[in-house]
């Protein structure tokens, strides 16, 4: 026991502090369950809670089923068959991920509404006056369409990489044993890729539960919108916390279902000789079908909205003063840059902790601190605000002593927003850094220490240079995710502080869809670029 105390050094100390800071705000939510209920909550529980639950459930289940169908079938086509444009589609099919669903949502609304390109064309070119309700997308099925078409790449990418790298001999064995393509697909492909399908689908589900932009814009009542309404509309933070706690319960349920579905059967490859799946050439109508299917999904998820946005940008270019626009860019880059830098620093420290300290606690603690990613933005917003107001109350005497004439300092500053980003996106940075640490192992570190370098010197001279790739890719993913983020930014930003995404959201909400396009395109452009670079980087497909 006495010996294990000697493990406490600067590294473990700061790692434990960081993990506590990341995890504790979420406890406010858990604590909120036990506060006495008020009238609002009783009313909500009786009349509307069930409708939030059922709406969220429908959204989640329908989106999961559709993203799996599209993602898995595309993954299988690309992994197993050769058809025209396959090499283009292989990576282009990831691109819809670069369009944040709320941007997709307002763009599609703009395309199909009364003054949009489709109805206008029908009226003016063909003289057809159609019932506008046929084109109403601002409803539950519309939201499901938006989520599906912009989120399916999660399932597609993870499953495709798995299939093309891991499955060659299993699939060939099935062929040799006489199963045709359909038999192989249902009897072998689906079972072996179950873990990656579920992994991708659970990312989709978490995104849907986190989403605020789409449902708010389409006027659909879900947990997330209800939390904000109770909070700001009714000014009732206690009930908002209770709603947030219910949503967290929902998320925990999702995570448990995921674990259950993955089960103990973690299929991993039994040999280390991994070879790529040889492609089967498709011809005739089959080839045309495969190419057509890929192109349709591609067009719906990327080209159509992007072309529409370009069109709107050309129409409105100059209406937003460049100076103002550059301010939003600067704000976005600043907050995303600071938060991503802090996240990577924290991840490096926590990841190193996992390597320095042995035992179950060392494995469990980092797991707890990455829960933030599964917790929806609305819940984190409630937790962070509660924590910061409490902090300001505690610090009030200090503020007075310093001569401030207000008691709210931290809770109206950028620090609050950045802290919320860090809690929410820590997991993403951490995963990248952790896999980097896993890849380099502990021998280099041990070698350095045996050559006389302490832990800290070793970290800077050996670990950091070897982690360069993981650090860069982790930073990029976190940065992009923060750039696109909506609910946290909307709620926690200081007064009059706008980023690209809050501005997009505001314009769209004010029915100034066209004005929103310029900022949207910039967000999409940066995301698309980094997605392409990132996937080219992590997957160098053997030729």
């Amino acid at each position, binding site marked *: 026991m006495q010996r294990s105390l000697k493990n406490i050094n600067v590294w473990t100390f700061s790692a434990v502090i960081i993990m506590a800071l990341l995890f504790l705000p979420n406890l406010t939510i858990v604590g909120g369950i036990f506060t006495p209920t008020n009238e609002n909550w009783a009313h909500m529980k009786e009349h509307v809670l069930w409708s939030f639950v059922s709406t969220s459930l429908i959204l989640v289940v329908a989106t999961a089923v559709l993203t799996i169908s599209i993602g898995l079938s595309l993954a299988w086509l690309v992994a197993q068959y050769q058809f025209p444009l396959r090499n283009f589609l292989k990576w282009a099919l990831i691109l819809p991920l670069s369009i944040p669903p709320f941007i997709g949502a307002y763009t599609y609304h703009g395309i199909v509404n009364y003054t949009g390109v489709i109805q206008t064309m029908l009226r003016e070119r063909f003289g057809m006056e159609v019932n506008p309700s046929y084109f109403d997308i601002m409803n539950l099925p519309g939201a499901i369409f938006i989520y599906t078409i912009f989120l399916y790449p999660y399932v597609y990418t993870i499953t495709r990489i798995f299939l093309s790298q891991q499955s060659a001999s299993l699939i060939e064995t099935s062929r040799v044993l006489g199963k045709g393509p359909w038999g192989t697909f249902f009897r072998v492909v689906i079972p072996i890729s179950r873990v990656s399908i579920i992994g991708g689908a659970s990312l989709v589900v978490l995104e849907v539960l986190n989403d605020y932009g789409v449902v708010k814009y389409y006027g659909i009542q879900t947990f997330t919108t209800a939390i904000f309404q109770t909070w700001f509309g009714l000014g009732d933070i206690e009930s908002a916390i209770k709603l947030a706690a219910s949503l967290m319960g929902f998320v925990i349920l999702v995570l448990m279902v995921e674990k259950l579905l993955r089960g103990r059967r973690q299929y991993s490859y039994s040999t280390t000789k991994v070879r790529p799946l040889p492609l089967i050439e498709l011809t005739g109508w089959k080839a045309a079908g495969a190419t057509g299917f890929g192109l349709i999904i591609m067009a719906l998820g990327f080209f159509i909205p992007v072309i529409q946005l370009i069109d709107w940008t050309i129409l409105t270019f100059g209406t937003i003063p460049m100076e103002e626009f550059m301010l939003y860019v600067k704000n976005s880059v600043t907050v995303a840059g600071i938060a991503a830098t802090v996240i990577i620093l924290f991840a490096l420290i926590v990841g190193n902790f996992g390597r320095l300290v042995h035992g179950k606690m060392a494995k469990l603690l980092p797991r707890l601190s990455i829960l933030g990613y599964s917790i929806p933005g609305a819940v984190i917003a409630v937790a962070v605000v509660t924590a910061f107001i409490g902090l300001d109350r505690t610090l009030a005497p200090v503020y007075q002593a310093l001569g401030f004439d207000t008691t709210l300092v931290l809770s109206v500053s950028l620090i609050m927003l950045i802290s919320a980003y860090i809690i929410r996106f820590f997991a993403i940075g951490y995963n990248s850094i952790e896999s980097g640490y896993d890849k380099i192992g502990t021998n280099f570190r041990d070698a350095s220490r*045996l050559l006389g370098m302490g832990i800290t010197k070793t970290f800077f001279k050996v670990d950091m240079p070897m982690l360069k790739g993981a650090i860069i890719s982790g930073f990029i993913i976190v940065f992009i995710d923060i750039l696109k983020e909506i609910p946290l930014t909307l709620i926690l930003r200081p007064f009059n502080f706008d980023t690209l995404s809050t501005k997009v959201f505001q314009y769209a909400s004010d029915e100034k869809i066209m004005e929103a396009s310029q900022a949207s395109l910039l967000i999409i452009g940066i995301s698309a670029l980094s997605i392409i670079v990132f996937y080219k980087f992590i997957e160098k497909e053997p030729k």
Partner: protein
Amino acid sequence: MFISIDNVCFSYSNTKTAALNKFSMTIEKGEVISILGPSGSGKSTVLRLLAGLEKPEDGSFNIQDNVIFDEKKFLQPEKRGIGMVFQDYALFPHMSVAENIMFGLFRFKKAAKQARLKEVLELVELEEFADRYPYQLSGGQQQRVAIARAIAPKPHLILLDEPFSNLDAELQGKIRKELRDILKKANITSVFVTHDENDAHAIADRIVKLKEGKIEVIGRPCDILNINRQAVVEAVALVEQQDMLSV
């Protein structure tokens, strides 16, 4: 007596059984010790404990009357003055051969650093390779860099983990002799771990045979390995005798 190890016990946190049970031995200066045993016998654990990469449950370890660890004290690996050659060499991929070797020489003055670099490069016969990067070297060359790096700071003791396992059979014989020459020339006390009796026989002054975390026998190669050799000779003789009888 140069190094003494007394009653060292250790078990990994995920198992109940002791990985090492009351391990004791003494080592003289300049001696080459081989720890021989099948996988799971605890031989790598001995190295990790001596290096400071694991913390013992009990026991003590002294070099020249300096306590490295006992019940009260535990010296961190970087303070021990012990060098180690890892099984996979662990050469820093982002540093050249010279940078790798000079990594542990941060306490040396600039001129002394260069001189020591030259000295160890000569010792391992890699003078022309100073500016190469690890990936530009063959397996045998990488190993010699790892040895040079470990002995450069003039450690009291050098540990080698399965030094021949990553080399092909043809190289092994050549490298065994080279390694013994290098160690003897540098007059460096060393402990190396192997599962191959031939390695132990070729290099070691003394051999420690481990079985299930306990020392089975300690002795000179000719004494220990002869026991087995004797058995082989007898078996062969028996077969020959039977052959003769059957004729």
